[in-house]
């Protein structure tokens, strides 16, 4: 079965998630679907699997490449019935059910209204055989390894006779041996005539296994089913990013004045979450980066600084004065320090509240008289930041949850700017944000520093770090492993040093 989509458009309030996507999935191929976060991959998958209905465009299938039948999916079961299977990034197995039950879940064989156990087991074992996988059919899925679960998910997709199989980041939780195993299965499925669509961030894997590629950028397909053999790695990156890496050329900035009193200083700080002897300073106008592997303890340090975890020894000085911060309220009202959370949807914004309240929440004290908030001043405040940050909203009462990720992030930043914070801790500001909004964020952060804010920036995006930070502190296992002077903003030089510190086993 060959499946193709033309001109797919899917709109959400405030954003065109898909804006003209073409896709051509031929049988017997492994097709990579690439794109940066926010490019529209997840929306495309949801359209193809019947979770979302497209606002425009057609999806068609053909058995012989000559006659095309349009298909519409009202619900996920329709896509399953049409032979499209999906293995989502997050697990969709019932942990207490057996391997056989999980595999057969969507196509449970029935006889006289009850489950036909022997037919179910036959179906499950046929699917496992197809994958060359030997598993006890009666074992509860909860007892399997992560990799085995992943393969059971694939088997589950096969049980519904999927001829187009979508794998969303299938190897993100697998070791490289386990990934190899999975890819062996993928090759076998391809050779059997299926089309496997691979959504991944790992370019190595793409070049190792995929035949063709579709690249999405800002909701459009910028490469449609091109053969990977004619593309180089940097071609693919260029297609995804839409700009050449020229942006990452050195862009030196003058060193910041560090002679005055530091806005924020940590002196030999240890925390209840395992940090030991961490010392750092951030001066007004400076962007200090905190880099490290996931789990190195960067966000945890920020949270301890804000009183969400305990500081067990050492001291925190704000503008030279010893500070005792027991909550974000303390940090905000007594010390003028704000925290832009890495977890936008759960901690950064109130999804079900109007944008006005999302921005004004930190300054209601200032906007109120006799304990009553004036709506008018709230609106004025919002308008100020809508202008300054270029936030796109359809009205003051629009719910934050209806905005795109980038606009939500701007709202989450705006509330601290509204509160006149002089110190900002910014944690992963551009995760899940499209490339252009990302660039505007970088401009914005640099401008805030230029206005004299002291910024402690936490990000796992090394190019972003090198673009923005004046100095990069590398954290390794909850201790500072080294400091990189980054005023040259030279990606090649700085990243090399950063990586060296990151992997240092012992710190002097």
């Amino acid at each position: 079965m060959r499946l193709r989509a033309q001109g797919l458009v899917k709109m959400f309030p405030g954003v065109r998630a898909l804006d003209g996507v073409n896709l051509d999935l031929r049988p017997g191929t492994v097709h990579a679907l690439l794109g940066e976060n926010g490019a529209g991959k997840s929306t495309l998958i949801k359209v193809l699997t019947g979770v979302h209905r497209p606002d425009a465009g057609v999806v068609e299938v053909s058995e012989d490449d000559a006659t095309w039948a349009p298909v519409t999916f009202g619900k996920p079961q329709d896509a399953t019935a049409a032979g499209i299977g999906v293995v989502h990034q997050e697990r969709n197995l019932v942990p207490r059910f057996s391997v056989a039950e999980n595999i057969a879940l969507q196509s449970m064989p029935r006889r006289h209204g009850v489950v036909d156990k022997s037919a179910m087991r036959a179906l499950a074992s046929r699917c496992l055989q197809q994958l060359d996988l030997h598993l006890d059919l009666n074992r509860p899925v909860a007892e399997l390894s992560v990799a085995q679960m992943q393969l059971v998910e694939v088997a589950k997709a096969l049980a519904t006779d999927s001829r187009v199989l979508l794998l969303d980041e299938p190897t993100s939780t697998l070791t490289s041996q386990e990934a190899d195993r999975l890819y062996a299965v993928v090759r076998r499925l391809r050779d059997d005539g299926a089309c496997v669509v691979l959504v991944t961030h790992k370019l190595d894997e793409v070049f190792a296994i995929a035949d063709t590629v579709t690249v999405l950028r800002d909701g459009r397909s910028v490469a449609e089913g091109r053969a990977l053999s004619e593309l180089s790695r940097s071609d693919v990156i260029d297609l995804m990013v839409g700009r050449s890496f020229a942006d990452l050329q050195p862009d030196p900035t003058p060193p910041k004045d560090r002679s005055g009193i530091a806005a924020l200083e940590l002196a030999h700080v240890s925390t209840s979450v395992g940090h030991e002897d961490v010392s750092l300073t951030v001066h007004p106008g400076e962007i200090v980066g905190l880099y490290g592997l996931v789990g190195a303890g960067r966000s945890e340090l920020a949270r301890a600084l804000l009183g969400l975890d305990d500081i067990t020894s050492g001291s925190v000085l704000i503008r030279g004065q010893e500070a005792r911060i027991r909550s974000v309220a303390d940090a905000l009202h007594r010390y003028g320090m704000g925290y832009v959370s890495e977890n936008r949807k759960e901690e950064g914004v109130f999804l079900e509240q109007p944008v006005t309240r999302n921005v004004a929440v930190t300054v209601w004290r200032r906007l109120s008289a006799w304990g009553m908030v004036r709506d008018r001043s709230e609106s004025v405040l919002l308008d100020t930041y809508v202008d300054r940050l270029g936030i796109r909203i359809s009205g003051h009462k629009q719910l934050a949850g209806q905005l795109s990720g980038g606009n939500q992030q701007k709202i989450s930043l705006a509330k601290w700017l509204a509160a006149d914070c002089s110190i900002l801790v910014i944690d992963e500001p551009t995760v899940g944000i499209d490339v252009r909004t990302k660039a505007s964020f970088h401009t914005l952060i640099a401008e805030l520093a230029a206005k004299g804010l002291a910024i402690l920036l936490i990000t796992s995006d090394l190019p972003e770090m090198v673009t923005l930070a004046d100095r990069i502190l590398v954290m390794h296992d909850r201790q500072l492993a080294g400091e990189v002077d980054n005023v040259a903003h030279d990606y090649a030089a700085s990243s090399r040093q950063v990586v060296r510190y990151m992997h240092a086993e012992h710190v002097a």
Partner: protein
Amino acid sequence: MGEATLTSAPAAPPQEDSTTPSGLPWWANPRVGLLVVIVALVILFSALRPSFLNVDLTLVPMQADLSVFAIVGLAQLAVLSLGHMNLAVPRMAAVSAFAAGLTYDRLHAPLVVGLAVALVVGALIGALAGTIITTTGVNSFVVTLALDFGLLGLVSLLYAWATDGVAFAVHPAGMDALRFDTMNNYCAGPVCGPPVPLVVPIALVTVVAVGVLFRRSRVGREMLMTGSSLRAARLSGIPVTRRIIQAHALSGLLCGLAGFLLAINNGAFSATIGDQFLLPSFLAPVLGGTLLAGGAVSVLGTVLGATLTSVIQKGLNLLQFQLDQLQILIGVVLLLALSLDRVRHVLAERRGVRR
């Protein structure tokens, strides 16, 4: 700096909906629906039983009932704002009413002092519930359920200790006036007031005060933000622990007021005060469109919800329905309202709140 950001922003997509961006179209507004149903029922009942419009027989007692149940609804609404529940509404009211009764009985205090005592006691019990919830982190459902059970025992012990039965015999000065008089009894020359019981203005003031609290005040808004997302509230510098305790204290205070007013309406401070409060406390706010999930409340809706409940109760009463049939019906109404709550959620999600 505006230029850099603005020019790099993608072209604005067309907005799909022209209705209010946050809410639903007006016909899906639960308050409009409630009003229509109330009017329809009033017409129906008065057609079937003309005595439904009788002032002394129906309208005056109904207003007195309604005043109590609107406040009971607000007591639940206060914690629904957080996404919490208060299952101790009945006994918070009972203990408060006991405290007021005791004040009259032993101290022969004037009416208003007993009211103040009821409010303070209610607020303190509420604050206690809030404190337990914030310090232990146990779900409000469990905490208030246990609290209600404990207080139930306490109430009967207290009445056994303080009275020779299950009620105080005392009648403070002014109690009967508050119970039986309407504004019609008070005249300025030839012009007399409307046939409105004296408890109604008390309820009205309360409704307005709670409405202003949640709509305009910083404290009320911070409670709603806390209910919307506890983590985001904490990380936005809202003193969430304090707000949670305050919301529960407010709930307790309103229970105290409801208990006091019911005792006035019944003519006695007795152990059974509050017994019938639990279901109506949810019925009124939920019918009125307050979300169980927290973060949004409707005070006006709660009043309408309480009105609907009172109209149904009175009407079916006049049609000589039995009490048990009535209970079945009220239960069904609550289930329908809760399903509607869910439907609204789904509709809101369809409108693109991204999670």
